[in-house]
């Protein structure tokens, strides 16, 4: 969701009166160089299995091509060629998709499920998160007590 689409969400967002909640803004530190290749490929395979009707062979082919793309990136600087071994490359079309799937499957999915009752509204644009929280979060332990 880009900022123009988010303006529509904001127009329709109704906050409690009076507003005593929090607006939490989070930004991932250096997302692209931090994403591990192996984990991102596994997350993408899992995402394909859960969200697409593609046959297994097609899913594996996509992952195989992705693996080739993300592990073959080279940078030329002062007549030397460097092979990037950490993270995913910035500026490549595939990287945005990999980053989004990684953020969703690995980072967000479980936490959003756990926090769903405490978050009024949540939005993420690749590595920037904005979360409107209007209820106190209670630990399982504090619930029990």
């Amino acid at each position, binding site marked *: 969701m*880009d*900022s*123009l*689409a*988010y*303006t*529509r969400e*904001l*127009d329709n*967002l*109704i*906050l*409690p*009166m*009076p*507003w*005593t*909640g*929090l*607006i*939490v*803004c*989070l*930004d*991932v*530190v250096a*997302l692209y160089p*931090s*994403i*591990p290749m192996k*984990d991102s490929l596994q997350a993408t395979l899992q995402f394909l299995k859960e969200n697409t009707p593609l046959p297994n062979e097609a899913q*594996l*082919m996509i*992952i*195989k*091509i992705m693996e*080739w793309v993300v592990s073959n990136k080279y940078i030329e600087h002062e007549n030397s060629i460097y092979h990037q071994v950490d993270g995913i490359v910035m500026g490549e079309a595939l990287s945005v998709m990999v980053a989004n799937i990684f953020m969703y499957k*690995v*980072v*967000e999915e*479980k*936490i959003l499920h*756990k*926090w769903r009752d*405490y978050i009024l509204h949540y*939005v993420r*644009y690749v590595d*920037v*998160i*904005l*979360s409107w*929280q*209007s*209820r*106190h*979060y209670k630990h399982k332990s504090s619930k029990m007590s």
Partner: protein
Amino acid sequence: MAITTLQAQEFKNELTAQSEFINFYNGCYTNKSDFLDLQITVMQEVWPVARTRIDYRIYRKPGNTLAYLCADSYHASHAPYGMIVGELIRYFTKSSRREYYIQDAQMLYHAFRNRGYTHRMLIQRLGHLDWSKREFYSAKGLQPKIRHIPGGGAVFNTQIDPVMQMAIREGFKLNLNWR
């Protein structure tokens, strides 16, 4: 009871704990925040209706010097026109109030005047777009970028990649056997 910043910290900690490779910068606010190019403000309104109102306008980084293209640059003459129109459309589609749009448009006017553009040229463009066109441009901007075709799929253009074509002719093969 107001929620404290400890909750924001806890939310951040739980997200961070999901992967050893990911860390977050944390910002926590009660009535304002910045998200992408939006500056969001929460206000309590008492009239005409008592409610919590969310306002938004264009966010600029503190270091933004509004250094647009100079009037005597060698760009084609339509380039600065396009920049002004593009910025104005961005301003009114991302401002919740008309006064925010007017303030930003005034700022744009002075920024371009400082870069050597004439009052006449700027007024021509600034007068061309007004608040009444906001809804039209918002709806236009929100249209899907991919043109869908009935029955699924999307329309896109393809062309032969000469490098890949040459490589395949020379015997290059992708090994698609997984594991």
